[in-house]
């Protein structure tokens, strides 16, 4: 008997906006077991699983969903971990609506299955159960691989290669592992305890972690290669971009990297219990429209701002941020100033930001990106009161490895050039992936790049692959 199709996605419980805007605790609370089973039961178990094809790391989505339907949660998490070392992270921060959920057949007439929420449910269920499923590890190959950076790309490579029996050391420049998951994404969207748990999981598989180790500076890649058979570079984000408008070096002007690092990695929101200070300005303007911009504006509100603005030169439809994050920001009272282009920042005599001059825009013809180009409206200049600007328009790849590795081919924007399918760089025995290759992108795309590189590194160490 054909089952009745249920088009309605189960909502995930969240902290109420008026409450959550005053704390740094996680906004989304996750499905209960019953909600997860109800949601999983909506899956049509299609013969051809488009969802799995839509996942950059090809998680067996129908497989784990069936486990949830059967209430075999241990089996479900084991299925995910066959291909994904970071389920609690991916379930929270992947843009599922553009990947697995986008191609879900249910989405044609109703809401797609909430694949991300179900993935998160299983990961959290495992954490709460206190028992961790560990996949089988192949016998030691005796090959040593160095991984530069412990963010999503690095952790994925470490996970994949350690399972194949290789000896893995992951080098992290900062004092805490996780890369952007730790310094960039705020606590209220991705609790750091979860990142720590996932890093500890790969450590439990035998991966060695060296903190405070800046490959390129503490030791160059060439010196690393005297001790290791291969290197994967997942060094992540580099220098922030600014608008290149007057006044960007005024006090009170931050890059999103600085603003979020102060708050997340350094725990500035807990100053003075933690030593690193962060300002608590009243009128904050965040420039940009991506997820990082949403994170910054929502952080500003939690730090006590009267007003947090997102200043974006296009309109709501063009916002690059995930819809879920935009809605969360709206619910919390972030003010969106669309079609607004900052022109200059104005300060007082002591060098502190006081105002921002902007220009109103209107949408014109589509540009090369297919989005309608914002065109200035003449004479529409206006000033807004602001005592903090957070510039959130992206960043270049981290420059340390390119600067210190001779012969490594680097692109015009400072990105490491790789073969797209394998992540292989122009240098023997060196692979790269994630933001250091693509510039700022998503967690899951970095993980996908790590997955491909791991496969090729393994081939190489087994005597095949790009280097052979």
């Amino acid at each position, binding site marked *: 008997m054909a089952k009745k199709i249920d088009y309605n996605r189960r909502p995930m419980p969240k902290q109420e906006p008026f409450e959550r805007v005053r704390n740094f605790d996680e906004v989304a609370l996750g499905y209960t077991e019953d909600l997860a089973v109800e949601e999983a039961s909506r899956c049509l178990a299609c013969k051809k699983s488009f969802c799995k094809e839509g996942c950059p790391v090809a998680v067996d989505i129908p497989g784990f969903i069936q486990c949830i339907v059967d209430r075999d949660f241990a089996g479900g998490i084991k299925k995910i971990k066959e291909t994904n070392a970071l389920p609690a992270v991916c379930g929270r921060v992947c843009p599922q609506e553009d990947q697995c959920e986008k191609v879900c057949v249910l989405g044609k007439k109703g809401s797609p299955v909430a694949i991300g929420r179900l993935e998160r449910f299983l990961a959290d269920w495992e954490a709460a159960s206190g028992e961790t499923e560990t996949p089988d590890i192949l016998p030691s190959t005796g090959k040593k691989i160095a991984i530069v950076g412990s963010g999503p790309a690095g952790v994925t490579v470490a996970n994949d290669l350690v399972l194949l029996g290789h000896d893995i050391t992951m080098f992290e420049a900062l004092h805490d592992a996780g890369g952007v998951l730790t310094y960039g994404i705020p606590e209220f969207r991705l609790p750091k305890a979860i990142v720590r748990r996932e890093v500890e999981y790969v450590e439990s598989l035998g991966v060695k972690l060296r903190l405070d180790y*800046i490959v390129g*500076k503490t030791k160059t890649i060439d010196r690393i290669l005297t001790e290791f058979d291969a290197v994967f570079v997942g060094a992540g*984000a580099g220098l922030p971009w*600014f608008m290149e408008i007057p006044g960007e*070096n005024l006090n009170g002007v931050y890059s999103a990297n600085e603003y979020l690092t102060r708050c997340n990695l350094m725990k500035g929101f807990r100053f003075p219990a933690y030593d690193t*200070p962060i300002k608590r300005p009243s009128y904050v303007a965040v420039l940009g429209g991506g997820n990082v911009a949403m994170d910054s504006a929502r952080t500003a509100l939690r730090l006590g701002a009267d007003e947090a603005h997102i200043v974006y030169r296009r309109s709501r439809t063009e916002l690059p941020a995930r819809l879920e994050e935009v809605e969360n920001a709206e619910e919390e009272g972030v003010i969106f100033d669309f079609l607004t282009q900052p022109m200059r920042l104005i300060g007082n005599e002591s060098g502190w930001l006081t105002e921002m001059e902007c220009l109103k825009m209107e949408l014109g013809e589509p540009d090369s990106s297919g989005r309608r180009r914002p065109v200035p409206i003449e004479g529409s200049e206006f000033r807004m009161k602001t005592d903090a600007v957070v510039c959130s328009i992206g*960043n270049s790849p981290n420059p340390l490895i390119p600067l210190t590795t001779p012969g490594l081919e680097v692109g015009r924007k400072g990105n490491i050039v790789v073969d797209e399918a394998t992540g292989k760089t122009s240098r023997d025995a060196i692979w790269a992936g994630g933001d250091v290759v693509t510039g700022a992108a998503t967690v899951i795309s970095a993980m996908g790049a790590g997955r491909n590189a791991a496969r090729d590194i393994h081939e190489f160490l087994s005597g095949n692959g790009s280097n052979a």
Partner: protein
Amino acid sequence: MYEIVERRMIVPNLHEFTVKAPEIAESVQAGNFIIVRPDEVGERTPLSVADWDCDAGTITSIFMQVGGSTAKLARLEPGGDIPTCAGPLGKETEIRDDFGTVLCIGGCYGIGSIYPVARALKEAGNKVVSLLEARSSYLLYWQDKLEEVSDRVIELTRDGTAGYKGHITRLGEILTLEKIKPDLIIVNGCTFLMMRASKMTESLGIKTIVNMNPIMIDGTGMCGVCRLTVAGKMKFACVDGPDFDGHEIDWEEFLKRRQTYNPEEVHPLRKSGCASHF
């Protein structure tokens, strides 16, 4: 964890700090800095490197106690340890064998960090004159070490208790009196010393390199807080520097940016019960 080998107050409020970090000791060069955290809730604090010992695997820095984090560092004892010591960071100071005569100016913690610069310049075959600047003679240190690597050491104190009396604004006059014609000047120390020295040498037409010390967080080219304007362009001290041409820096902007967190920096001191001093 990184073991503290030495931490002692070398002159009032300046501390000599030696930490065991063999891999950094192997890679470090004059002009580099390290980032340390005194404890698990501490700030990432950049310190200019003043010396190192590859055999012992140690790095030495001189730091001034200013705010909460440096106060914590100043309370560390030999045998203890710190959770973070990362580096070497920043580009090294450019050392060539054909500079000719180089004047190395050090003040405050910079007397320490100019020492490996003078040593490297001397080893490369340049003539090295070191000028040590302090408020008073009791704030000078490492004169013996600098004597060893310099052709001449000149002292300058504001109260005249050692060497010349006055401030760095006397530089032109001192050069004439000492009959020195430097081909290059390198300055390490507090912002005012570097700024005033640069303004002096600009009128003298002598190329001047300064080792900048902005606020930093990661120190690895990620956060962008250490930005400054050099020759009209935005530069990042942690990866483009910290050495820059002193004549090209927007000093006024730099000074203001340095003061961003002054109120927070003294917060722990205000809480210490000595608030009436502020």
